[in-house]
């Protein structure tokens, strides 16, 4: 070992991360010292400044490609694109957190999550006008962790980022104001299984270090290029993949997804479905492409198989769901499979094509926006017991609120991949990249799976438009400004990316660069 030298730090390249983490720290201080009365607007402002500031600074960095912080971080096209997506989706999620007009209790979050359910204090706090504000810094930390995840060029940093993004999520999934037991159960499940998955990741990291003597992705790549098939290295890769696939809710590591998506407060579900998915795939892409890009034929059959399992499980099990949140959870599992179809096509990147990477990034953006919007619509339809997520309660919604039904219809069509929506463009790009790479049997399965999945999306549309409304059905709330903004942005993006996706596809193409 030589002398310890201070690592080079390019502050400019780190600006997005500093912005977001800084805002999160400020949020903690506000929580500790700020006056209780107007904490909510202050926290909202801090979180929005943090995420939007992060977004702007990412945009200012566009075109950069460097490795910094002693080689631990890679600030390259792919990282910046995905960081921008995470920051943008994160800001929209925070808007959903801030919605106060829908729930009579003025927030989707419980004031003190630690109070036992059903106790006198619980009834007391159900009456109290106070709102939970700790969720803002927690979510901001998670967003920061996700952005770090996307840029990590080092397995250890990747692990730290994984934990930074996961821990706040475990907490805020348990903070639902209504159906608190379900929410707490979800949080505990998510935590236990998340810890289990982190264990896999960490063990994989150790094995890779054991095999290569380095945790730097580029070193692993160099070792794999010459070393070839080392049992330790291959086992390490397997365990790392398992850890990441858990976060990306890819079957067979999806088991937590339906329960947690259903139990968590809906704005948090939206946040997880959109941002966590992007972050997890950012790490998957970086790991498979940068560290194991030369041993493509080792992981390719595996990812092939996992993609098929995930698409089939998501599409088929989605058919039998009667709860909309669970249905969207299975949809998320199926979409993870579709994303892996794009990951497969990374192999096409060597001869300058790179269409697998760019189409996967585009798909992440399109899917994130759509799913976030779909969950946002779920927060609008309510009955006396909170959100009405049972399928039967949505019957005839179009007659109660044509606008809500139309917006939900657009999101569902996009999730189904119908032309002129972003979902079609994304699927089209991903499938095409895979076909170019010769993976047409996989695309065949993917097309069949999306045909099956289309059935359950369209079933909701049919229910909304062609069924008689139920007696004493749910009401459709009028959202306040934050949710309105989030819905407007997501609907517009879903349509624009479907009709004129050219510029964004172009951008993704240009950003499809990994350094490191």
């Amino acid at each position, binding site marked *: 070992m030589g002398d310890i030298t201070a690592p080079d730090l390019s502050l400019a390249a780190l600006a997005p991360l500093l912005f977001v983490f800084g805002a999160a720290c400020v949020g903690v201080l506000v929580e500790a010292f700020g006056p209780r009365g107007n904490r909510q607007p202050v926290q909202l402002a801090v979180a929005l400044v943090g995420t939007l500031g992060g977004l702007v600074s990412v945009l200012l960095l566009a075109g950069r490609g460097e490795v910094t912080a002693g080689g631990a971080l890679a600030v390259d096209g792919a990282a910046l694109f995905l960081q921008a997506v995470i920051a943008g989706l994160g800001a929209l999620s925070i808007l959903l957190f801030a919605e106060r007009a829908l729930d009579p209790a003025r927030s989707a979050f419980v004031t003190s999550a630690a109070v036992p359910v059903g106790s006198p204090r619980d009834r007391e706090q159900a009456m109290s006008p106070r709102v939970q504000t700790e969720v803002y810094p927690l979510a901001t930390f998670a967003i920061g962790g996700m952005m770090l995840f996307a840029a990590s060029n080092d397995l250890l940093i990747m692990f730290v980022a994984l934990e930074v993004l996961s821990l706040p999520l475990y907490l805020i999934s348990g903070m639902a104001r209504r159906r608190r037991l379900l929410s707490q159960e979800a949080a505990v499940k998510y935590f236990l299984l998340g810890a289990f998955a982190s264990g896999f990741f960490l063990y994989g990291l150790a094995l890779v270090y054991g095999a290569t003597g380095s945790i730097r992705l580029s070193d692993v790549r160099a070792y794999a290029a010459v070393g070839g098939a080392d049992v330790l290295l291959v086992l390490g890769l397997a365990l790392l993949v*398992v850890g990441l696939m858990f976060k990306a809710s890819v079957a067979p590591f999806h088991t937590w997804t339906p329960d947690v998506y259903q139990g968590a407060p809906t704005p948090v579900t939206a946040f997880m479905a959109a941002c966590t998915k992007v972050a997890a795939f950012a790490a998957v892409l970086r790991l498979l492409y940068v560290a194991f890009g030369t041993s493509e034929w080792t992981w390719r059959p*595996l990812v092939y198989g996992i993609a098929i399992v995930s698409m089939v499980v998501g599409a088929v099990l989605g058919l039998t769901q009667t709860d909309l949140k669970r249905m969207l959870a299975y949809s998320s599992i199926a979409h993870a499979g579709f994303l892996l179809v794009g990951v497969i096509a990374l192999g096409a990147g060597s001869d300058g*094509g790179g269409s697998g990477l760019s189409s996967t990034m585009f798909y992440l953006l399109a899917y994130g926006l759509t799913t976030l919007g779909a969950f946002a619509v779920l927060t609008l339809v309510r009955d006396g017991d909170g959100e009405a997520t049972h399928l039967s309660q949505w019957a005839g919604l179009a007659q109660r609120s044509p606008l809500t039904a139309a917006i939900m219809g657009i999101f569902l069509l996009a999730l189904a991949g*119908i032309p002129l929506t972003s979902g079609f463009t994304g699927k089209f790009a991903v499938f095409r990249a895979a076909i170019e790479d010769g993976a047409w049997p996989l695309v065949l399965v993917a*097309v069949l799976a999306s045909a099956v999945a289309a059935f359950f999306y369209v079933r909701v549309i*049919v229910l909304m438009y062609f069924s008689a409304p139920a007696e004493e059905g749910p009401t459709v709330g009028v959202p306040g400004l934050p949710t309105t903004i989030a819905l407007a942005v997501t609907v517009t993006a879903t349509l624009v990316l479907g009709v004129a996706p*050219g510029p964004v596809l172009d951008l993704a193409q240009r950003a499809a660069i990994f350094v490191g």
Partner: protein
Amino acid sequence: MAEAAPAEGLAAAAWLLIALPMAGAAVLLLAGRRADRWGHLLGCATVLAAFLLGVLITVDVAGLPERSAAVELFTFIATGSLDVRAGLLVDPLSLAFVLLITGVGSLIHVYSVGYMAHDPGRRRFFGYLNLFVAAMLLLVLGDSFVALYVGWEGVGLASYLLIAFWYRRPAAATAAKKAFIMNRVGDVGLALAIFVMFAQLGTTSFEGVFGSVEALAGGTLTALGLLLLLGACGKSGQFPLQSWLPDAMEGPTPVSALIHAATMVTAGVYLIARAAPIYDQTPTARAAVLAVGALTLMIGAIAGCAYDDIKKVLAWSTVSQIGYMFLAVGLGPVGYAAGLAHLLTHGFFKAGLFLGAGSVMHAMGDQVDMRRFGGLARKVPITFVTFGLGYLALIGFPFLSGYFTKDAIIEAALDRGDTWGLVLGGVAILGAGLTAFYMTRLMLLTFAGKARWTDDQHPHESPPVMTVPMILLAVGSVGAGFVLVSVAPLADWLEPVFGEPAEPEHVIAPALVAAVVTAVAAAGVVAAWLFVGRREVPLTAPARVSPVTRAARNALYADTVNESLFMRPGQWLTRALVWVDNRGVDGAVNGLAAAFGGSSSRLGRAQTGFVRTYALGMLGGAVVVAGALLAVTAG
């Protein structure tokens, strides 16, 4: 196929053809109740304007040397190697469809003003109808398979919305779902064909694909042809996906006339005709088209003999007639023009028949059971005459439309000269006899004999807004065949698309063929008179009937086959997967727990949601992943 020059003049405005009805649909569907009073007029006006524009463009393009023009619209995706442009192709084939869609479409729009006059959802109805016209025009005008696919999905959506228009009737909702699912099966075929084109050729434009067809391997071409055929079968209600079309009659009758008789269901014929350069290279796929056509024309004709619902008989007749068109385009270059001519004349007379059926239903208070009709000829004289002309045209009465175009198909089949030609020609002639039988039966049950009405029915003739379109379509039914075969031959007009019409070498003299077909049809008419016309018609269908009749009443058990082949296994698969997810994995855990001395109290409980189950699942997955990777590396 001739390369189309960039459009100049009027042809450059071809995008307006699509934009007009699309704008109409947007206004009607978004304006809400404010548009209730004038919405239907706007709906008619946009389609009528599109028709006039279509006529002008046709005249304009007819003067060009190649009779075709390409219209560049916009670039959908152009990044790296991915390049999808949207454009229109105005050529004789697409123009023939444009005129049919907007012409018949205008008449049906006008008719609907009267037919839907008392329906509270009339504005919504016209909105959907306009949406359909726009999507259908995109389908036929698009210059690539992707544009065609967008239109294809659009007409599917509009058809779905319109079948379920009276969505409060459970039958309508079920029928819509059935149509949707069967169409999805076909759509997957089309989508896969497009992906194959992308993978093999890197383009989906007609020009690009047809230009490089010869570079493709034979197997790929056959696969392409079969996948396209699957798509065509779904949309056109051909075997094995035929059973949605009769159920689709739950929609309002003008919809049945426009979408499920004259235009949308013929999209499959368009697709196969458009993809002629592909089929020219692959005899296998072409033989499959022939087989599908011949089989379906018989299935449709047999089922048509047994139904008592006037619209379902007409629907099965549509299935059967489209079978004729498939047979024609499956014959190759000798059949394209004949098939398309039959498609156009069928558009006239079948639309006229449906509008007539709608007029009868209008008169009889929405009754569709023909056993409750009878003796209507004098009560609704205009409907009777127009319907009768459509009927004569359909059964091939000499010198009316069907006589020319159906005979041309039968002749083309016989002209193959081999055994298959004789078989196909024979099937087509037999089908003509059955057609005459079931249509005569329909006429006799509806218009002749004694009145078998229920007490509350007081038949009356429809208002002029409905009868005028029927009269115009009847004129078309009478004259279109003669015009398309002799005055302005369609084969010559289509020459830039399909090449010069070959001089037919007749194996059997056309006059003889015509005589035989007419004789067989006459036999069908006489048989119908013997079985139906001279007897008392029972008010309910007799229960004790021969197995043949029972099979025909059940549409040759197509639904049963579909259910047992696809639906049940699908349901079973879903249930099995759910069971594995809920119980199988859980059960294994419980079994392990019991074996290790743990509690077995939970054995048999069908509860999921236990973290340990999930963790075991993940562990299992991880072991499989690690094992697979090691196996791959070792192997």
